[in-house]
């Protein structure tokens, strides 16, 4: 089939992590494919009026989320209904979007490209635009063996770039690997215990999510986003959202599917005093979570060990100007 000209990149599973859900079996990784995906990710020509790129809403310094925007901000200043989630460790995801409507990493890019309030372009036009550009044609050739541009190749190159965005070098990871200088303080240790008792069922190690859909008791807002039920149409799924990771919270605020909280303190106050009872509220949270002020501080210290500075600064993921 396709001939790969470039040396393959390796996709490394961090020590102690489960095997990823997506492992490039049908999409041979290469440096050329990764670079093509990265170029497209930062290219505003993928939007209808050439103003918005994936990188507009997914910024590396905020863990590839959109900092300071409760909901996404797209073409013509249109606002979406949901908060741009951070992008890292995507190859472990079992579904995409807050409601899990997208079942495969390769099917992800077409959704924002064609969404009227995000990039408002058609995939067919993107193919035409890229096919008309000599630089892209040579990059497609380097990645896939010939200059053909099609939606499948676009999707596969995106998956090569996005999937390679792995965050596994936080203090927590180094501590787990027993690396020098990464010992936890007493406070971080205490916080780790608080986390294990109260958060780990849903925000499970080592990815800090089990990717399940749950209702964590957020009172619905005027938008009345039904979450997972939007996809399954099952009343049992009302107001359930895909559990996000607790990694990199320092960079990814605001929090929750609609970006309603700006700080970890607000999140913890939600879990201790703000949970709304409803038929689909997760059992684990029906009685709320009880945390003393000291436990909150300890927990925050532990959550800080999940921030991965190397990941947000990794030049491999930056736009090449």
């Amino acid at each position, binding site marked *: 089939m396709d001939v790969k000209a470039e040396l393959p990149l390796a996709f490394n599973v961090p020590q102690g992590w489960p095997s990823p859900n997506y492992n490039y079996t049908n999409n041979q990784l290469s440096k050329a494919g990764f670079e093509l995906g990265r170029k497209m990710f930062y290219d505003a020509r993928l939007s209808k009026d050439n103003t918005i790129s994936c990188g507009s809403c997914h910024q590396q310094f905020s863990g590839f989320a959109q900092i300071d925007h409760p909901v996404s901000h797209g073409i013509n200043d249109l606002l979406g209904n949901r908060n741009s989630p951070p992008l890292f460790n995507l190859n472990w995801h079992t579904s995409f979007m807050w409601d899990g409507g997208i079942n495969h990493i*390769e099917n992800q890019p*077409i959704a924002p490209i064609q969404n009227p309030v995000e990039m408002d372009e058609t995939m067919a036009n993107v193919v035409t635009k890229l096919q008309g550009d000599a630089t892209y044609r040579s990059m497609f050739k380097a990645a896939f063996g010939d200059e053909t541009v099609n*939606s499948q190749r676009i999707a596969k190159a995106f998956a090569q770039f996005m999937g390679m965005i792995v965050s596994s070098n936080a203090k927590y990871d180094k501590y787990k690997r027993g690396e020098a200088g990464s010992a936890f303080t007493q406070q971080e240790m205490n916080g780790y215990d608080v986390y294990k008792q109260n958060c780990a069922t849903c925000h499970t190690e080592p990815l800090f999510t089990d990717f399940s859909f749950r209702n964590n008791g957020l009172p619905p807002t005027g938008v009345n986003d039904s979450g997972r039920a939007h996809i399954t149409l099952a009343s049992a799924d009302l107001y359930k959202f895909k559990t996000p990771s607790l990694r990199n919270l320092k960079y990814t605020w605001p929090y929750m599917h609609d970006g309603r909280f700006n700080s970890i303190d607000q999140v913890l106050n939600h879990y201790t005093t703000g949970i709304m009872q409803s038929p689909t509220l997760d059992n684990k949270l029906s009685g709320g979570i009880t945390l003393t002020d000291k436990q909150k501080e300890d927990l925050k210290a532990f959550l800080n060990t999940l921030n991965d500075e190397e990941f947000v600064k990794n030049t491999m993921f930056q736009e090449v100007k």
Partner: protein
Amino acid sequence: MVIFRNLVGMKKLGFLFLIVLQSVACTKKPDTIVDSNPAAKINIAIENYAGSQILKLNDIWYKNENGDSLQISVFNYFISNIKLTRDDGFVYTEPESYHLVRENNASTKSFTIVNVPPGNYKTISFMIGVDSAHNVSGAQTGDLDPNSGMFWDWNTGYIMAKLEGKSPSSSGGIVLYHLGGYSGTANAIRTVSLSKDITLPDKQSKTIHLKADALEWFKTPTTIKIKDIDVVSANSTKIIADNYADMFSIDHID
């Protein structure tokens, strides 16, 4: 799958063998090599109907079973996983069998299946729609390219079949039947099996002329009132898909 892979492997071996023969003998022309794969061809030619008349998009008012008037402007569907069963029990499965049929594009209404072993065939079967595996395994190409307008990007999956048009019986004036879903109750995939004796001699081709009646979407087992279903939702998917399951018939073979 395993059997299929083996067949492909065997074909490749045979091909290599022929190339060796050719370079030794240097007499056969390249097209003879292809032909000498022990295989015949089946053409599939589809004609879409509205009842007894050949379907014409727009312009013409048809009446469905319930007596509602409608014009049809879009009529598209996938045919996939074509299988041909011979009287000795052998089943031929078309590899990469995905065909998007669009009424507004004549070239999509006929296609050829090559490398079919000869014999007496009894049954042709296929799916209306795209099997679940190809709805969950990432980006596809060819007839499965999501650019076709037959793909939901916010809730991954193919639109298996689509009928659009207008009707005075619809409160909004429009008829919008987009049938998608590959599992559970909103599963729009239906399997069709049609029987007819087809004698396929070696190295020859036969054409199966299929008829697809768009008005079947509105009848058997359930008579559809357009005033009740003008836009198909997940709840009405099963009803319409059950109806279109029997829209195909074999018109003739030649």
